């Protein structure tokens, strides 16, 4: 048996999916959270059923990649029953897709979510009546609290055991205006809206939608987020992880290393200098970088991002950024992949799917690599420049930002056509659900640890081996003149550049043992962040956008990076 979860974006399909399967699917309060299909086994009907979480769509004729993925699955009819998830706050709008689904003549039931919110807003829906009119079963639920599912489970099991699933019979007009007319009549019969005083959240919605208040508030919020991330990140490092590392972990490693005789193995694992950010040892530098320097920032970033996502702020930010985005060839929703990219490029690239045209995807992808260093990179830049005044860290980030904007401005002029128009639904604010936050944080942190830690350790190991066999010196000979002439960087840095595309944060860490000057560190940081996407993101980009576009994006990246690293190094020379 195969169940598909189908519905408009942001109605709660992923929450229902997580409930039915016991897995964690990421859910957030903005349309387009799920961009790919997710599958899982449900506990319903003795674990015999498969559930598929389908990206949201407003109708079966949608244009974005995510919507096409959805309508392809739905039209294939390769499933036994549709669970049509609808948002009870938006009955009328949701019913269009429902009618289209009914016309497919496949077995179908409706799950109406967010009944808790609807009740607070004074929306009263007569589900029995609706069920009679549409001639299908409807289950009102509070998906986030798991309320209402027991009825669903009972009924669905009964239906499954019967094995003959009823097919809807109601007559559906084919013309869309006729469909809306029919929906209007149905809604009039089953829905009553009582007037309520606007709640706190509704007032907040108002002041964050009206331009005069919304724009300054967005500024304030971005600045606050930045400081909070830094505050939490620094706090965890200085008061928790760094002391733990120095007081408990280092003595342990010291003791452990004394068991080894001097020689090859010892050199690979411990290297000559065990001080984390000076030497280059798998057990000290590797652990220190992953857990002490990077993890606290990753944690802080995702905490803030998850809260903003769940409240429902991101679409409003997109609206505010729309006009600016058009200047660089994007519309406001293009900011969503960029924001995701500040955490990690990989989810950022996936969420390019919410954009429609290839033109926009190319621009957004290029911008993603140029403008938004992922959290591990940012954290390493913070760390390596931490012994200098904060202004230098600021200069590096501002320069990265400036180059990114300039590059996509140029790209926008170069590419044919114009940018698409923004067209998104702005969801009402929700109170963040604590359980969901914990879910999401756990998922993202685990993902980070699984992806990053082996790479960091492996990268360091690799460098040590290459170093011992003098391969690094060999590489340096070839690349050194280039780096030296163009960017005025010392010869050793060339080996880092080679490793940089495996894992950027490792590369930045590698700068530490070389005793570079402040200027050299700043230039290397900029170059390492921009010159090429990391291996993981190249793979995902290939999968998402194909060989040709990936190739162009990488070449463009490299070109911009070379030019602006040169300019950066020259101007820094002039300045100090």
């Amino acid at each position, binding site marked *: 048996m195969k169940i598909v979860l189908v519905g408009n974006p942001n109605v709660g399909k992923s929450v229902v999916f997580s409930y039915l399967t016991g897995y964690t699917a990421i859910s957030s309060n903005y349309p387009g959270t799920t961009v790919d299909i997710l599958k899982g086994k449900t506990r319903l009907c003795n674990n015999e059923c498969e559930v598929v979480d389908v990206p949201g769509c*407003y*109708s079966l*004729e*949608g*244009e974005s990649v995510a919507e096409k993925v959805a309508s392809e699955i739905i039209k294939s009819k390769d499933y036994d029953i549709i669970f049509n998830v609808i948002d009870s*706050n*938006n*009955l*009328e*709008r949701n019913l*269009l897709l429902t009618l289209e689904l009914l016309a497919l003549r496949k077995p179908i039931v409706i799950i109406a979510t967010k009944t808790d919110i609807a009740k607070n807003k004074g*929306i009263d829906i007569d589900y029995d009546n609706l069920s009679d009119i549409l001639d299908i079963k409807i289950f009102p639920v509070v998906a986030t609290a798991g309320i209402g599912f027991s009825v669903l489970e009972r009924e669905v099991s009964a239906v499954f055991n019967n094995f003959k699933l009823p097919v809807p019979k109601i007559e559906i007009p084919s013309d*869309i*205006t006729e469909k*809306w007319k029919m929906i209007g009549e149905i809604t009039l019969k089953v829905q009553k809206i009582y007037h309520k005083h606007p709640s706190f959240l509704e007032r907040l919605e108002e002041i964050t*939608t*009206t*331009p005069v208040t919304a724009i300054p508030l967005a500024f304030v919020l971005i600045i606050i987020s930045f400081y909070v991330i830094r505050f939490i990140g620094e706090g965890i490092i200085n008061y928790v992880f760094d002391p733990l590392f120095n007081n408990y972990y280092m003595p342990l490693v010291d003791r452990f290393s004394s068991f080894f005789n001097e020689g090859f193995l010892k050199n690979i694992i411990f290297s000559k200098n065990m001080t984390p950010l000076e030497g280059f040892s798998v057990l000290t530098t590797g652990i220190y970088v992953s857990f002490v320097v990077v993890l606290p920032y990753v944690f802080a970033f995702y905490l803030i991002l998850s809260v903003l996502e769940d409240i429902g702020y991101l*679409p409003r930010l*997109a*609206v*505010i950024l*729309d*006009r600016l985005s058009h200047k660089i060839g994007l*519309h*406001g929703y293009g900011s969503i992949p960029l924001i995701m990219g500040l955490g990690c490029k990989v989810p950022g690239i996936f969420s390019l799917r919410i954009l429609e045209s290839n033109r926009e995807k190319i621009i957004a992808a290029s911008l993603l690599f140029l403008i938004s260093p992922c959290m591990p990179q940012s954290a390493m830049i913070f760390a390596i420049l931490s012994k200098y005044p904060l202004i230098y860290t600021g200069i590096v980030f501002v320069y990265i930002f400036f180059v990114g904007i300039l590059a996509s401005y140029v790209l926008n002029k170069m590419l044919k056509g114009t940018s*698409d*128009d*923004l*067209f*998104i*639904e*702005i*969801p*009402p604010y929700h109170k963040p659900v604590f359980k969901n936050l914990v879910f999401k944080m756990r998922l993202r942190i685990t993902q980070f640890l699984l992806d990053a830690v082996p790479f960091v350790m492996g990268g360091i190991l690799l460098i040590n081996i290459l170093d011992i066999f003098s391969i690094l010196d060999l590489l340096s000979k070839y690349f050194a003149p280039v780096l030296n002439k163009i960017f005025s960087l010392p010869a050793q840095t060339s080996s880092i550049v080679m490793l940089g595309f495996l894992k950027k944060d490792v590369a930045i860490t590698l700068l530490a043992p070389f005793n570079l000057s402040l200027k050299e560190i700043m230039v290397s940081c900029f170059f390492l962040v921009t010159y090429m996407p990391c291996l993981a993101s190249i793979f995902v980009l290939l999968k998402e956008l194909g060989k040709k576009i990936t190739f162009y994006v990488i070449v463009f990246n490299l070109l911009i990076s070379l030019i602006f690293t040169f300019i950066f190094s020259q101007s820094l020379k002039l300045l100090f």
Partner: protein
Amino acid sequence: MKTNLAKANNKKLKVVQINGGHNILKKLNSMGIFDGSLIEKIASYNHGPVIVKVMNSQLAIGRGMAEKIIVEEV
């Protein structure tokens, strides 16, 4: 008086015509904006998007697209 959605006042409006290609029409239609539908404009950004209330949900519509939607006050 007929005007386009970008220029209209923040009020209850009736859509009288959509001057767009097949794709735009399809998109707008599927969100409940079609000839004869009632919408309410609630905010408008200078040279930026327009925000409307359609049925029970809020939509942000880019300026270019808003200019293609002809409305009249009701």
